[in-house]
């Protein structure tokens, strides 16, 4: 990689550095407050990393697990282990949890530069513009600003491909070892890469094997050893797919259900749906509407009113696609096309219409395609100064648009998706440490925010709940954690909860004004969103009033 970077001219190096700085700025600026709040999965990642750091076990007491149990689901482990480093450095806080993702997201741009240069020899403009597109794309910036395993997996996945291509072309065995190691890491980082990694490892070998038959430098022995090495190291992850922990997620997300296949003899028309649905979902990943206008349908996975690329990129997207198909049948073309068509497969096998998180590897070939469109326009347009000035203006306006969505609309309009209320709650109630508190939350998930923000000792939590960890990878049902210390997370039962607790916390719907009056509750705090909407109300009960001798005027 350093060799590739050293090939650059002074001007290119400066440009790349400038774009890198822009990328870093949009990934790190206000990292803790935009998105506003801490999503429960991020809290889970952070607390489990903290727990590993403190006790060597996860929140359930399982020592160094290969899958982390989290609300009845299982998380792939690598990002959690990576987060232990940032938590060691910065302590248990929002910044530390998101830090690794932001760093890896920033560095991925450099990998994209090197990989583009490796694939398309000497096309430096294409390499620089592709990395710039990546650095400023809302898709990458969004996932770099949250603790998303998919973003970390993308870094290792691209690094693995870069090392593999370089190893084959330069005949360096140690690079092949590094490549396989990175492929293995991706399988421990995100589900989609578990499917993609073996395919890509094999695909790249196959396209180079065809060429190397003449050159004779890629040996079958190398391929077999690499594959065995990969399968050996990643086998625990693949074996775990056959346990409840592994297949629970597959069963929940898969678009083709076993029940549907069983119904085919009675309802043969189901076959059409079985073919049509994945094809429809697959096509959606190339739809200009999804790529340039419409955000991910999951509000927790997108900016308001901003898609994964900027709207104007549709023009270079079409141009780039045209030029890509017109390229001669070279390895470069096969690599990019392979990347383009293979990347959305795992995502299109799940039911979500356009899952930007599962299709994240697609960002690389699309950056190349859009970059190609811009590169060709640069070549064809005679007046380079006008073209570059136009590009500078367009990119500046795009960044202005990003600023609006990232620093204003996202925190103001999406805070509830990022569990802002539960993020603030432990701080609000910090002076009531010995109070019996009930949080009206039937699913009992927000206990993780309490653990995270109070830095609850993991050893104490593990002792408090003696979970049965002998069947750790076989538990597929969510067991609600009802209580953390003196704080309960369950439904309010009138006549019981209000008598046995000092403080009740609920949404305005959870406890209405009438209920509060009928059950003699006094409002202690109101947790508002930045737009002044009430998220949670904190009430003190009669028992609480007596305990704290508060005289609050109703």
């Amino acid at each position, binding site marked *: 990689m350093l060799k590739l970077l050293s090939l650059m001219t002074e001007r290119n190096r400066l440009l790349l550095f400038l774009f890198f700085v822009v990328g870093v700025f949009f990934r790190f600026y206000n990292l803790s407050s935009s998105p506003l709040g801490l999503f429960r999965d991020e809290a889970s990642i952070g607390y489990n990393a903290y727990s590993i750091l403190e006790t060597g076990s996860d929140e359930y007491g399982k020592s160094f697990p290969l899958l982390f149990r989290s609300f009845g689901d299982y998380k792939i482990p690598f990002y959690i282990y990576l987060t232990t480093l940032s938590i060691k450095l910065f302590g248990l806080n929002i910044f530390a949890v998101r830090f690794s993702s932001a760093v890896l997201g920033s560095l991925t741009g450099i990998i994209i530069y090197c990989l583009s240069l490796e694939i398309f020899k000497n096309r430096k403009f294409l390499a620089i513009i592709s990395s710039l597109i990546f650095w400023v794309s809302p898709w990458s910036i969004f996932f770099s600003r949250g603790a998303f395993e998919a973003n970390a997996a993308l870094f290792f996945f691209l690094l693995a491909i870069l090392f593999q291509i370089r190893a084959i072309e330069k005949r360096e065995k140690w690079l092949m070892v590094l490549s396989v190691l990175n492929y293995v890491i991706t399988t421990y980082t995100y589900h989609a890469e578990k499917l993609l990694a073996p395919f890509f490892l094999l695909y790249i070998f196959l396209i180079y094997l065809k060429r190397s038959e003449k050159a004779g430098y890629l040996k079958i022995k190398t391929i077999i050893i690499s594959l065995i090495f990969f399968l050996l190291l990643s086998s625990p992850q693949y074996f775990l797919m056959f346990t409840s922990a592994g297949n629970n997620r597959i069963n929940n997300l898969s678009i083709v259900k076993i029940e549907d296949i069983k119904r085919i003899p009675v309802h043969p028309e189901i076959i059409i749906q079985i073919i*049509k*649905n994945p094809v429809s979902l697959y096509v*959606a990943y190339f*739809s200009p509407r999804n790529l*340039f*206008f419409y955000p991910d*349908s999951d509000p927790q996975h997108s900016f308001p009113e901003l898609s994964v690329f900027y709207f104007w990129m549709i023009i270079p997207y079409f141009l780039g696609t*045209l030029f890509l198909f017109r390229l001669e049948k070279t390895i470069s073309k096969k690599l990019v096309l392979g990347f383009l068509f293979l990347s959305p497969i795992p995502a299109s096998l799940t039911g*979500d219409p*356009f899952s930007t998180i599962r299709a994240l590897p697609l960002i690389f070939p699309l950056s190349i395609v859009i970059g190609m469109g811009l590169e060709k326009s640069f070549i064809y347009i005679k007046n380079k100064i006008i073209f570059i000035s136009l590009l500078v203006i367009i990119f500046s306006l795009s960044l202005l648009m990003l600023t609006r969505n990232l620093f204003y609309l996202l925190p103001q309009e999406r805070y509830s998706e990022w569990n802002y209320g539960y993020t603030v709650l432990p701080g609000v109630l910090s002076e009531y440490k010995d109070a019996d508190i009930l949080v009206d939350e039937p699913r009992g998930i927000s206990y993780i925010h309490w653990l995270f923000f109070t830095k609850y000792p993991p050893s104490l939590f593990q002792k408090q709940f003696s979970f049965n960890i002998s069947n750790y990878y076989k538990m597929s049902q969510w067991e609600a954690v009802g209580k953390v210390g003196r704080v309960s997370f369950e439904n309010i039962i009138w006549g019981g909860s209000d008598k046995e607790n000092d403080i009740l916390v609920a949404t305005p719907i959870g406890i209405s004004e009438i209920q509060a009056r009928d059950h003699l509750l006094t409002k202690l705090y109101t947790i508002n969103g930045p737009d002044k909407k009430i998220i949670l109300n904190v009430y003190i009960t009669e028992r609480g009033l007596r305990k704290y001798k508060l005289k609050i005027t109703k």
Partner: protein
Amino acid sequence: MKRNLSQIICLLLLLWGLSPWIIQLTKGHYYLESIIIIIVLFLLLIEKKIKKFKYFVFLFPFVYVIFSFIHFQSILKLNELDIYDINQRRQYYLPSSARIFENKLGRYFYYYENNFFQAIDFNYYFFNNHPRERAGIRETEKIIFIFFPVFIFGLLILIINKKYFWLLYFIFTLSLISFINPIDPLTFLFLPFFAININLGCRFILKKLNLFS
């Protein structure tokens, strides 16, 4: 590219006779179906016969869009909710920069973008009425989805042969109708574009299979 007119007509009748789009469009107005088919065939005819005047085809969407303002609304007419939304969002910013980020122009552009990208989405024509719905929900596509690869072939043939007329027609019509809300009823103006591409794709595949020359 040589075309046998009777073959085209046969394929088109087959395609549009089966198209759920036509059925949706003409529900209760059967005379419309025949008008649409006649228009499509007419456009095909004039492309071949009166090449010099083929750019008059562009007048059709233009005139249609002007008349459609009688029934539909322009995106330039914002409703009270839009104005409320703009004012509400202005509170997020410092007063000096609020108008830069939130203004009527931005809202017009947003609606234009919305229409433009909805009409350019192939999923919208071949798979679902609402491509962002979760898969599995029963919906009727506009054109039967098996025609999708055929359409792609047709489109590639046009591009490779540098025949950009219908592509231009598509872009021109798209940029015009994006000014109108809702865009859905107006997308039928793309019928000739889809018909031509699917026809070309069909002919290409059948030729490759030696079934139809």
